[in-house]
């Protein structure tokens, strides 16, 4: 699958999520994104440094500005199970808007064409680092990193594009 790019339609898929009432749910991307402006950003792994210390905090701290510019949802996905995502989300008590979604076995990441083999680093097949902006399911911004860098996939780049 070629990586998703500007002009493509966001595919649908089921992701795991512990909601506000701590209930384990399967949510469909389309149900969260249809008719709305959403940011979907992805990271290689929960509890790893760049993801935890730079990428995620950027979206958490900029969430209000992003919402002020018309973003309805900020969705984080990672190839981790929902229990791990829930525990990771808890390490950000200040988070109000970012939803931590679990792509347990990487099905949705593969549908986006964004899988990355990190077997050598003990992680298995994960996701590339990326940030997408989609308007009613149409991708308008696609910032996808090469390797594990953190250069274009942060919140600031999306803010500039809004």
């Amino acid at each position: 699958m070629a990586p998703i790019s500007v002009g493509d339609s966001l595919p649908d898929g089921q992701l795991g999520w512990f909601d506000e009432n701590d209930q384990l749910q399967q949510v469909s991307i389309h149900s969260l994104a249809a008719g709305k402006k959403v940011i979907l950003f992805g990271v290689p792994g929960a509890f790893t440094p760049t993801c935890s210390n730079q990428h995620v905090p950027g979206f958490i701290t900029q969430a209000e500005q992003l919402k002020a510019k018309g973003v309805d949802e900020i969705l984080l996905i990672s190839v981790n199970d929902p229990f791990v995502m829930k525990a990771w989300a808890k390490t950000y008590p200040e988070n109000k808007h970012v939803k931590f979604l679990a792509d347990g076995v990487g099905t949705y990441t593969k549908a986006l064409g964004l899988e990355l083999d990190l077997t050598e680093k003990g992680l298995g097949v994960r996701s590339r680092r990326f940030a997408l902006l989609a308007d009613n399911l149409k991708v308008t911004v696609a910032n996808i990193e090469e390797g594990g860098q953190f250069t274009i996939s942060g919140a600031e780049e999306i803010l500039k594009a809004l």
Partner: protein
Amino acid sequence: MASVLARRARGSAAAALWGAARGFASVGSDIVSAAPGVSLQKARSWDEGVATKFSTTPLKDIFHGKKVVIFGLPGAYTGVCSQAHVPSYKNNIDKLKAKGIDSVICVAVNDPYVLKGWAEKLQAKDAIEFYGDFDGSFHKSLDLEIDLSAALLGRRSHRWSAFVDNGKIKAFNVEKAPSEFKVSGAEVILDQI
């Protein structure tokens, strides 16, 4: 699942023979030979991973010449694993060491970075060594794999425990269902050492 129950229903001698022939784990079999070429990843931070070039630990380094109590569970940060299984070993560590156990090991199909975060949260890093079987190959070799996709976990491990002396399995306990916690705790294995 059925094969695990069938194996336990036979006498332990017959089970050991069958286990040895199939390469699966059972009392009397050698855990290192049952999983040839398999290694585990010690729970670590990313920086430690980089510094060690993401090295893995071969099973023989973990088991040869040592008395080891090892227990496996479905997943870090999940209910029974966090609230009952790990604490059972953490709270009995002195008793286990008093019986001559060199290492107490917890293994799960998780990556080593998630495991480090979890071990620190449970404050169990000093008592227990956490290892990740990140691609499930260790558990698959021991026929301890179970599909927990219904719980959104994918391929994971049964809940189990074993006492392994210089690589030989002396005691081996597997729960009938991963949500149960009856035979795989520290109290049971303390009696089996």
